[in-house]
């Protein structure tokens, strides 16, 4: 299974990390499928965005990738293995920061390490090392000096930065983001795009970003998938061939707006049907 995913060139970048083969998922026997006939593969280190009208099963897609739900039909292969339970190689962040209010930013970041192996059993001995890692992660997202603040002492944007750090602290191969910037104001959102871009450029994990925001998808992703209304199907796969590193200025260039308009057209067509 693992070998077939490897390309002939042997390029490590091209190894397939996530592979969906004609996947259906129904939440119960009566309600029909939440997503249907989804096939796609995500390369290691690829930044994928999934866009679509609300209720199209984007979040369902996340549950499948993370192993929280098994598919009703078809196969989901992640990291060379068929998914049959929680994966532990993923980090997740959502629209709500979901930080624990009784923990400081630092302690919130440590939470995944208290759960996932091998950190769980080595946390006592290596606490200092892990805290240093958390501190440097917080520094990369511009939260230096806020380690001992409680969530309610941080602004919404800062909480979301901390939430993304929490998703990355255990160095997951796969970062799943479910509309992480949806609740932020436009300026903070664009600032965090750049934070995410820089984190990804530095660490090169694989990202699946679910979003409503077409500009966000076009700015950040390598590949954008457009999903249909429920039952969610993949309608369009669009490679974003803008050069990297991308700067915010690019969002005002014509080649960028062309891409956004094209995506918009697809979404518009779905909404009409």
């Amino acid at each position, binding site marked *: 299974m693992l070998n077939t995913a490897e390309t002939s060139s042997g390029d490590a970048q091209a190894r397939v990390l996530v592979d969906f083969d004609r996947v259906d998922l129904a939440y119960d026997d009566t309600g029909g499928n939440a997503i249907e006939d989804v096939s796609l593969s995500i390369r290691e280190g690829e930044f994928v965005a999934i866009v679509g009208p609300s209720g199209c099963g984007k979040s369902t897609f996340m549950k499948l990738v993370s192993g929280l739900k098994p598919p009703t039909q078809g196969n989901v292969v992640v990291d060379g293995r068929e998914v049959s339970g929680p*994966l532990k190689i993923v980090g997740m962040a959502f629209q*709500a920061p979901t930080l624990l209010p*009784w923990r400081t930013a630092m302690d919130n970041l440590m939470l995944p390490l208290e*759960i*996932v192996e091998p950190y769980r059993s080595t946390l006592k001995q290596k606490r200092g090392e892990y805290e240093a890692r958390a501190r440097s992660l917080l520094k990369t997202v511009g939260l230096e000096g806020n380690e001992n603040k409680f969530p309610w002492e941080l602004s919404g944007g800062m909480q979301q930065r901390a939430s993304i750090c929490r998703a990355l602290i255990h160095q997951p191969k796969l970062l*799943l983001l479910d509309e992480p910037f949806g609740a932020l104001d436009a300026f903070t959102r664009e600032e965090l795009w750049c934070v995410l871009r820089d984190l990804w450029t530095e660490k090169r994990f694989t990202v699946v970003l679910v979003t409503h925001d077409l500009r966000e998808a076009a700015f950040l992703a390598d590949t954008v998938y457009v999903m249909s209304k429920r039952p969610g199907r993949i309608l369009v796969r669009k490679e974003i061939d803008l050069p990297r590193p991308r700067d915010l200025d690019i969002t005002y260039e014509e080649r960028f707006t062309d891409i956004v308009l094209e995506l918009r057209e697809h979404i518009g067509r779905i909404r009409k049907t």
Partner: protein
Amino acid sequence: MASTKPRKDAWAPWVFTAVIIILWQAICSGFTVSEFIFPSPAAVVKSLVEFAGPIADHAWQTFWTTVAGFGIGVGVGLVLGFIIGSSRFMYNALYPLMIGFNSIPKAAFVPILVVWFGIGTVPAILTAFLISFFPIVVNVATGLATLEPELEDVLRSLGAKRLDVLIKVGLPRSLPYFFASLKVAITLAFVGAVVSETVAANKGIGYLMMSAGSSMRMGLVFAGLIVISAMAMVMYVAFAMLEKRMTGWATRGMDSKL
């Protein structure tokens, strides 16, 4: 007011209480109300001083039966709340039963308890327990059951077991609910103990009031009321302070909706 943290309106309850007492005294003196019907504050204080020894004795009995019943209530309430709050199935199975149980007036249990355990301390403890555990169950269960699904996803995707989620997130999250319920439960426990004492005991403030009432010593009856109320208030304040200390994070800046 030698308060450590002066607040502008800290004097308000004291002044209001003083006004009520003065009004009470004025009505009793002004209309020459019989002391056998409605004793004046002065008469109540007189009884308090005169019977200070026996009152303290009975008050101690009521206090420790209440605290014992409350203690059992906390234990049982925590366990039941944990069970109900952590499993949807148990929630569905037990919750209707709990509601049904809670709607029975607890005074109705006293005769049964007397048949089982005889007159005295045990029925008082058990009544205090029966009346006080319910709010704890409901609050702990609510705290556990209202866990954010996203947060659960975050943890479960890391391979967290149910118990991990409960210990790392569920329990700390339900603590503010738990401590809030302690305040309610301790005052209810006093109600339970005193109700039981008035019916089936030969010691305790409830018994004292009952026997003083039957010999028409209304000053003493009212003194008993005031002693109960004072004890309950002290305990309430103690638990309110404990709550603030333990779960200050829950009341400060919750605008981010957790």
